[in-house]
């Protein structure tokens, strides 16, 4: 089999079917951009998780006078409560799991609150005694927060034990849903892309049925007959997936790094390096999909 011949046949097919080829390029571009975006979101979630989970602590909120009476029938936690909580944190039972802990009293809590809500109306209403005194506990392994929760939940004078990760999980589940939605759209579009590829290849075969007939007649092997058509689909889809990789790069470069990272300076966003991982995946997916779709389409023309 001669490479030059196969490539020449493929080029002819691409030329004759220009508009269909362009539509394949566009559909693979859009669908793979969705796939790439979904992957970006997943990377972003992973990155944020590792960033925030590292910083997340378990808070042991002590009762205040304004706490709901169901949790804190005695009102403001007494000094005894504080001592017993602290002792328990120091006990051999819990100590091995802790990295460190510190106590935040009303005054410190008030300062932190004033900083966080600076300029907002609520900063004016809140008084120090309304804010919980808190033991902030940093675990060696953030996944073991249950140990603290179980040890202190329901203890007299403790209003609530809260793993900060539970707040983060809500954000992550929203991001996850968005990335699943993107994957859903991508699957739908990839399906239509594969149908489009097989239709195009069938048209291409139809427009070259004379050649196909003669090739079969003179004994060209199935591989030689198929290859130009498969390559035709693969080339079109590869162009689409390369463009999709470019689109993903542009999203990271101009939207994530250029806009989001400026607007939200304290959040860590996916870097341009992730594109180097996503792009080969997109191109590989494009090639695989188009090879299967066009191979299946041309097979029907090869019944001997």
């Amino acid at each position: 089999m001669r490479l030059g011949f196969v490539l020449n046949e493929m080029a002819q097919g691409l030329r004759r079917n220009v508009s269909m080829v362009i539509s394949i390029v566009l559909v693979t571009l859009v669908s793979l951009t969705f796939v790439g975006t979904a992957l970006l979101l997943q990377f972003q979630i992973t990155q944020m998780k590792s960033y925030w989970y590292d910083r997340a602590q378990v808070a042991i909120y002590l009762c205040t006078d304004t706490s709901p009476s169901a949790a804190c029938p005695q009102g403001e936690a007494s000094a005894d409560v504080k001592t017993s909580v602290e002792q328990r944190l120091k006990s051999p039972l819990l100590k091995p799991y802790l990295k460190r802990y510190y106590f935040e009293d009303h005054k410190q809590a008030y300062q932190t609150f004033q900083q966080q809500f600076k300029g907002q109306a609520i900063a004016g209403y809140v008084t120090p005694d309304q804010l919980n005194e808190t033991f902030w506990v940093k675990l060696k392994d953030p996944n073991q927060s249950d140990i603290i929760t179980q040890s202190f939940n329901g203890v007299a004078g403790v209003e609530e034990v809260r793993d900060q990760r539970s707040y983060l999980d809500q954000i992550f589940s929203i991001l996850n849903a968005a990335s699943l939605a993107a994957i859903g759209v991508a699957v739908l579009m990839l399906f239509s892309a594969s149908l489009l590829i097989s239709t195009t290849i069938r048209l291409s075969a139809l427009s070259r049925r004379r050649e196909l007939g003669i090739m079969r007649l003179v004994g060209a092997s199935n591989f030689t007959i198929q290859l130009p058509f498969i390559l035709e689909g693969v080339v079109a889809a590869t162009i689409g997936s390369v463009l999709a990789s470019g689109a993903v790069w542009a999203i990271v470069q101009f939207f994530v790094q250029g806009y989001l990272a400026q607007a939200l300076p304290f959040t860590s966003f996916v870097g341009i390096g992730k594109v180097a991982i996503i792009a080969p995946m997109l191109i590989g997916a494009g090639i695989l999909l188009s090879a299967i779709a066009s191979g299946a389409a041309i097979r029907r023309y090869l019944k001997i």
Partner: protein
Amino acid sequence: MIRIDNVTKHYRGANRPALNGVSLEIEKGDFVFLVGASGSGKSSLMRLILREDIPNSGSVFVLGENLRRIPGRRVPYFRRKMGMVFQDFRLLPSKTVAQNVAFSLEVIGKSRAFIQTAVPDVLEMVGLGHKANNLPSELSGGEQQRVALARAIVNKPAILLADEPTGNLDPATSEEIMRLIERINAAGTTVVMATHDRGIVDRLQKRVVVLSEGNIISDMRDSGYVSVDKPTPGFAAPEIATEPALAQPPRLTETFTETIVTSRSFLDEVIYENEDEK
């Protein structure tokens, strides 16, 4: 070389089989005409020999291959040993004469060097060396068929199948094509040719297999009948066989003509054509 054993081919939707228990043996170097009306089974037989179809029953052996058993992936390699031409030439209109011939070699992976020598050689042989760079549309029908023949034989096939190769050509051009096919045959290629043109059949004095409604009704060498499978009542041809005139005539004589006219054989049309020519 070709052995067809009790072959039946029934196409779906047809009310009678295209071939009905046909047996035929063709030796290496033979030149065989398949004649018969449209729908008599000539083309079906050729399709079976080329393994375009598989018979419903019976077996087809070609070049030592049992075509019912040959696996699909080996079929292309089998076809490389066969050449085929058609009534409608089947050239690629966008390729030149030389490119058309080269195409059949390119797709089976022949080297550029081989193609560069084989194509001019075969075009010279069919007398089209000077038109190598013309497009098929610039050629006459006879020239186009010569290109098709060049394409069929460029890979030196053992068997040449010709399905009405002169069907679209005028008698003089047909003669040229037949001379070329005879030369190909003389070089050792087995030729099986389906035709309606009884003038050609008659002039060439080769083996003639007559098909009618899927049956071989006569199989006649230039020296007479080889075998008759299923004689059809009312078909007059068998009677000619007993005529002494058929035993040796290398060409049409007046006596031969009269003999056939009186026997009102299937060769009638031929005779009238010949008389017109005189």
